[in-house]
């Protein structure tokens, strides 16, 4: 079910609140998050309904994304190397359109991490020693509400609090609302021209592509 009530991330991201769900297992790749046949589109709009389509079919309704108790959840707890494989931004787009606004796990694949950041979705890591306990806490009461405070880098519920880690650069981008990089990059055009003027392949032996 696509949750449309929660707006997509915009501006400063200093906290994410909501219920949490978890997916166990290392190396969950982006082909599993959104199978390639759903990439045949010129818009991301329909992807929320298709997230984890094949895994969900295989489990016949018992996949975490299908359980009634998780509908409307906004925090996804995962294990290691989540989002490996294809660079398809369709993967975080599908998660976002399902309702996910933050991910917490042992580790994330690099391109996936950057794609999430570009959508204003923090991917925070938790110490290896704590991931099992966090998963148990999430599983113990799927209806409890969690708050992920980016300023303090803590995940808190009525039952406990967990220290998370976010790299300083992405953290600053999220807190300042500058995670959408386009305008910053476009603003540096004078510096871009200086860089281009010094590149041998644009000046000393230029071969136009046209």
């Amino acid at each position: 079910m696509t949750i449309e009530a929660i707006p997509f991330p915009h501006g400063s991201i200093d906290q994410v609140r909501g219920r949490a769900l978890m997916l166990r297992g290392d190396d969950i790749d982006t082909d599993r998050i959104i199978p390639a046949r759903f990439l045949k589109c010129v818009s991301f709009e329909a992807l929320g309904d298709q997230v984890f389509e094949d895994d969900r079919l295989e489990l016949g309704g018992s996949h975490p994304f299908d359980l009634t108790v998780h509908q409307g959840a906004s925090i996804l707890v995962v294990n290691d190397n989540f989002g490996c494989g294809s660079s398809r931004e369709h993967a975080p787009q599908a998660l976002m359109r399902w309702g996910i606004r933050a991910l917490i796990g042992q580790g994330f694949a690099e391109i996936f991490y950057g794609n999430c950041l570009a959508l204003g979705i923090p991917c925070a890591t938790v110490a290896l020693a704590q991931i099992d306990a966090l998963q148990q806490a999430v599983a113990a009461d799927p209806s409890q509400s969690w708050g992920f405070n980016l300023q303090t880098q803590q995940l808190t519920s009525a039952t406990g609090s967990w220290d998370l880690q976010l790299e300083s650069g992405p953290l600053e981008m999220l807190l300042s609302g500058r995670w959408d990089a386009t305008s910053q990059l476009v603003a540096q055009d004078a510096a871009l021209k200086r860089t281009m003027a010094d590149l041998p392949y644009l000046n000393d032996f230029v071969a136009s592509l046209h």
Partner: protein
Amino acid sequence: MSSGTLYDKVWDLHRVADLPGGSTQLFVGLHLIHEVTSPQAFAALHDKGLPVRCPERTVATVDHIVPTISQTRPFADPLAEEMLSTLERNCANYGIVLCGLGSGRQGIVHVIAPELGLTQPGMTVACGDSHTSTHGAFGAIAFGIGTSQVRDVLASQSLAMNKLKVRRIWVDGQLGSGVHAKDLILHVIRSLGVKAGVGYAYEFAGPAIDLLSMEERMTLCNMAIEGGARCGYVNPDGITFAYLQGRFYAPIGEAWHRALAWWSSLASDPNAVFDDEVRFDAASVAPMVTWGITPGQGIAVDESVPTADSLEPSERPIAEEACRYMDLEPGMAIEGVPVDVCFIGSCTNGRLSDLKAAAAIAKGRHVAQGIKAFVVPGSEQVARAAEAEGLDGVFRKAGFEWREPGCSMCLAMNPDRLEGRQISASSSNRNFKGRQGSSRGRTLLMSPAMVAAAAITGRVTDVRKLISNTATPKRFHQ
């Protein structure tokens, strides 16, 4: 922190500015686009009212969704047709060169850019596709990006990036007969794991790498991402320069000599500092086959599917999941496992030398009964070159289908796909669950020569056993 490496040199030359938050704005020297990850980026650009900053540094092709049996327009699949026509419209509107179907230059984006001479040493290359690491074979810093970043590159010809650490993967010795770059990279990923490369660029170096052809180096760098490394590269050398000379977009005359002088200065210095180094011996690499659902789950063809006690505890859950999914038993030999479909192609192994290696095995033999085997050249240029050498005839005579260029069954966005529980021998790069178009389909990754051997016997086969008697025509039956 690394210093004096090719990665450091190229990074420094492409720095535009330091951005708030600590990331670096990096100039992108070559931006490659295709039909799958660009339409939403163009739409976002349009919404923001921004032009394409450097259309002359942007090149497009169509590869992921194209059919390989008939490429007549309009495509039978209306969604595929819409994606291609959207790309055509965007390229026309923004003045971007499109290497379209029938242009003589179309093909898989990571095959055409090198063969056209677009990819050159010392460049930064970005593309909305994780296998952009391929271009690192030329001593470029090349990495895959998502669609929001495609939008950023279109708008600003640059990206917000964080500098990676550099791990040198030093390979001594020489690959044996019947052992290819694909086997080497599967061996490396098996040893280091699929996430060891996160946060790193991989520099492939050493005597074994120096001996590799450009096409082999591309195979190697192509799969750096499967080891978690967003980019992999090889220092440019005489083999690189010889490959580039005379290519369509390569410099000529005096410009060639200026290019050569600069390119020669780019290799990592003898006293370069790496963040990490690992060593391998090429002579110990055997033909590899994956048995599981990640590219790290590979073994030599004469090994057995690992048992739980031979694995690290952290690897056991996914190994168990893999055996269940693949329907393989721990401890069983991988050699002899029957296959249904044999696919030769992809950005990993769809180049001329790959097709030659497979054809050498197929020549004078025939595909086993009941096996579907097909060859998809990586590009129109590869197809024409292969046909000029008669490889299409060799394959057809041996019972393989000879197709038109595209990504095809690597990710099955076109009509080429597995059905149900079919199991493939595939020269592609990913054996993820459902990767080849059936949610329950299974993939065994291997080199093109190994795929050809599997096609001939109908089973996973050590290609080295077929090399010694290639002169004797043989027909195998299941």
